[in-house]
C-alpha cells in the first residue's frame, strides 16, 4: 500500500498525536512508514503540518505537491493553505471551526473561515465536521484530534483497520482519557462512514 496523508492545523491543536497514531497503526499492519512534523518556533500559534507517508516508494519525508490522498484539516484556512498537496480525487476532512489569528483580532479583519469553506466545497471532495459542536458532546475540544482521526478512518480512505487504530489510541492517551478518546473516535467514525456512503 502507498498512501500519503497530510494533517494540518494550528499549533496546539494536537496534530502531532494524530499523525503518530496513524503512523503507528500503519506500522502495526506491517507497512513502512515515514513522517515529518513542524516543531519549534512555528508551534506557537503558527500553522503546523504533519506529513505521513505509508509505503516503500516514499523517499522524500514531505509529500510532493498533488500527491496527498487525504488531508485531515483541523482548521478551514489551514486546509486551503495545504490544498496544493491534495491529489486529484483526494479527500479533505475539514473541521469547520475557524481559529482567528491574533493579527485578525487586532485588525478586526473579520476572518471567520466561511470563505475558506465555500472555496473547499466548490473545489474538492470534502467531509465537513463542526468540531466545536461535536466536541461539546465529548466535553472538551481536546478530543478534536481523535474525532477527526475517526472521520478519516470512517471514510475508508486511510486503508487502516478500525481496531488497529483503536488499539494504538489506547496505547497513546492517558488512561483517564482513554474512554473519552475512544468515544471521540467512534463518533468521528460514524460521521466519516455516513458522509462517504452519501457520496457514493
Amino acid at each position, binding site marked *: 500500500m502507498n498512501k500519503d496523508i497530510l494533517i494540518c492545523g494550528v499549533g496546539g491543536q494536537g496534530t502531532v498525536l494524530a499523525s503518530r497514531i496513524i503512523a503507528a497503526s500503519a506500522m502495526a499492519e506491517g507497512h513502512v512508514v515515514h513522517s515529518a512534523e513542524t516543531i519549534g518556533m512555528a508551534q506557537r500559534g503558527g500553522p503546523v503540518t504533519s506529513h505521513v507517508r505509508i509505503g516503500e516508494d516514499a523517499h522524500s519525508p514531505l509529500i510532493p505537491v498533488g500527491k496527498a490522498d487525504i488531508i485531515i484539516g483541523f482548521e478551514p484556512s489551514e486546509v486551503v493553505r495545504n490544498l496544493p498537496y491534495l491529489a486529484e480525487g483526494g479527500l479533505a476532512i475539514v473541521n469547520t471551526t475557524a481559529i482567528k489569528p491574533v493579527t485578525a*483580532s487586532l485588525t478586526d479583519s473579520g476572518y471567520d473561515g466561511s470563505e475558506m469553506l465555500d472555496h473547499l466545497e466548490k473545489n474538492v471532495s470534502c467531509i465537513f465536521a463542526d468540531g466545536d459542536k461535536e466536541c461539546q458532546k465529548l466535553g472538551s475540544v481536546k478530543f478534536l484530534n481523535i474525532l477527526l482521526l475517526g472521520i478519516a478512518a470512517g471514510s475508508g480512505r486511510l486503508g487502516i483497520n478500525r481496531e488497529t487504530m483503536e488499539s494504538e489510541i489506547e496505547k497513546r492517551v492517558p488512561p483517564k482519557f482513554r474512554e473519552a478518546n475512544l468515544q471521540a473516535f467512534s463518533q468521528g467514525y460514524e460521521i466519516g462512514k455516513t458522509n462517504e456512503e452519501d457520496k457514493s
Partner: protein
Amino acid sequence: MKEYVMGNGAIALGALKAGVNVACGYPGTPSSEIIETLAKYPHEGLHLEWSVNEKAALEVAAAAAYSGARALVTMKQVGLNVASDPLMSLAYVGVEGGLVVVSADDPGPISSQTEQDTRRFADFARIPVFDPSSPEEAFEMIGDAFAYSEKYKTPVIFRPTTRVDHGYAAIEAPDSYTPKAYEGFRKDAGRFVIFPRLSYRNHGMMEERNVKIGEDFSAYRFNTAEGGPSEKAVLASGVSYKYAKEFLKDHPGVKLIRIATAYPFPESFTLKELAGVKEILCFEELSPYLEEQLLKLSGKHHLPLTVSGKLTGHVPHMGELSADSIALLLKKYLGIDDVLESKQTATPPQLPVRPPVLCAGCPHRASFYAVKKAMAGQKTYYCGDIGCYTLGNSMPLDMVDTCLCMGAGVTMAQGFSHVDGEGKAFAFIGDSTFFASGITGVVNAVFNEADITICILDNSTTAMTGHQPHPGTGINMMGHDAGKISIEKILSGIGLKKIVTVDPLKLDEAMQAVRECADIRGVKAIIFKSPCIAIEKSSKKCTITNACINCKKCIRETGCPALTTAEGKVTIDASLCTGCGLCRQVCPVNAIGGDGDE
C-alpha cells in the same frame, strides 16, 4: 524491537548502540530530542547532561574522549558558534575515544537566526563531517562517525538538517546498553597541552591525514551512485538526495551521485563516478559546498564538466529545498515534461497570516506589558534575546528592539547606555539563557559602569525548545536534585544596585518595580518570576461580563490569542485562557470576570 522514532531519536539510539559513555548538549531546535531520547532508553552507566551551554558541553566531552571514552555532544548550528573555541583547538589536539559533535542545521531557517552550513565549519576546523539523508541512515551513520573518530583520533562532526532530525521512521531500538570499556586518561603533556609547537606539528599532520580520510571516504558506504550512465548527472547530499530520488525513481537513466561526507571530500570516488558525465546539477541546502568541491576537482583534473547549482543561479541559495522544487528544477534540466503538479487550479481566497505568538496566559506577555506601560513616553532601548520571549516583538507588544544571539541582550543594552546617556536601556533575558550566556554580560555591566535594567523572565524552564531543565530548576538529566541555583543570589554576588523579584501577573507591583529600577543609575535587575503555562497547567478562566463596552482595549493592548471577537463582541476562548488575569487588569470598565477563578 522496531520503534517509530524521530530522526533525533534515531541518532540517540545509534549512539547508545555505539556504547557512548558521555553525552552532553545544550537545547536548540532542531537538535534537542537527542539528549532527551537518551534519557528514555536503558542507559545505566552513561553520564548524561544538559550542559550550561555548548562550549561547556564540548569541553566536558573532550576530557571524556581524552580518557578513551566515547562522547557525544549535541547542539544546533548556532550552538556550534559558541562551541567553536574549544572545537578549533580540539581539532589540533585530537582525541583518544570517539568524539562526535552533532550540529543540526536548519535550512529555511525554520527556527534559527542564521542559515549557516556546518559542513563549512568542518572544513574550517579540518575535521570530518557526516551528512545523513534520513533517520534510518542517521542511526547507522552515528556509529560510523564514532568509528572514524577513533580510527583517526580526531573529533568528527555529524550534521543532520531539520527534515532528518524531525522526520520519523521505524528504528531497531537496542533493548540493552553496554557502555564502551575505556582505559582512562594517560597523562601526556606533549599531546594534551596545546602550545604553538604542538599546533605547528599537528597542522601538518592534519592536512596529510585528511587526504587519507578523503581516500577512505571514497569507499564509504553512504557515498553512493545510482542510475545512469548518463551525460547529464545529478549530485545531492542530505535530504536533497531523497528529494532528487523521489523524482528520479521514475527516471533511472539519470545518474545520481550522493556525497554523505562533504569534508574531506571523497575525490577518487567522485572522479570515478564522473567518467562520461558532461554536465552535473548540484542539490544541497544552505551553501554550495559540494558544488565548489566539484569545481575544484574539475579544475584540478581539467575535466570537461559543466557544474551548475547555486553558483550558477540554477538552485536558490536560501531556504529549504523540497521534493517539489527539486522536481521542477530537474524537469527543466532534463527536458522532461511530466512533472508532479498541483491539481488545484482555482484561486484560493486570501489566507490569514499566522505569525507565531506568545501563548495565551504566557507570563512573558505580562512582563513586557508592565515595562511598556511603566516606561510609556520615555526614550527606551529594549534589547531582546533568544527564546520564546523573542516573540515579544510581535504586535501589539512591540517590545523587542534588538535580537542578535544568545546572551546579547544584556551586553547590547550596555552599548546603548554608553552612547546615549538619556535613554533607558533594558535587557530581556530568559532564565535558561541567563545561565547559558547572560552572567558574564552582567559582570561586564557592573565592571564597566553601565546604566541598564536587566529583566529576567524566569519561567523556570527552557520553554522554546521543549521544556528542558537548567541550573535554576534543580533536577538534572541524571535525575538527581542538584539544588536550584538562585539567579537572585548570583546577581547579588555580582553586586547590582538593586534586585527586585516580582510576579509579572500582578501588574501594578510589576510596573512599580520597573519605575523604581529605571530611576536609579547603574545596573539593576528585575526578576519576573512566574511559571511557564505549559508546565504548570491552570484550570482558571477569565470571563467577560455584561459590563463589557466592547472597546477591545484588552485585545489591542495584550494581543492574547485567547481574546477574540465573535459577531463583533469580545469573547474569551475558554480552551486557551489560563486565567492569568492580565486582560482583567487592563480592562477600563472592570468587565472581565472576577478574580480569575472559575
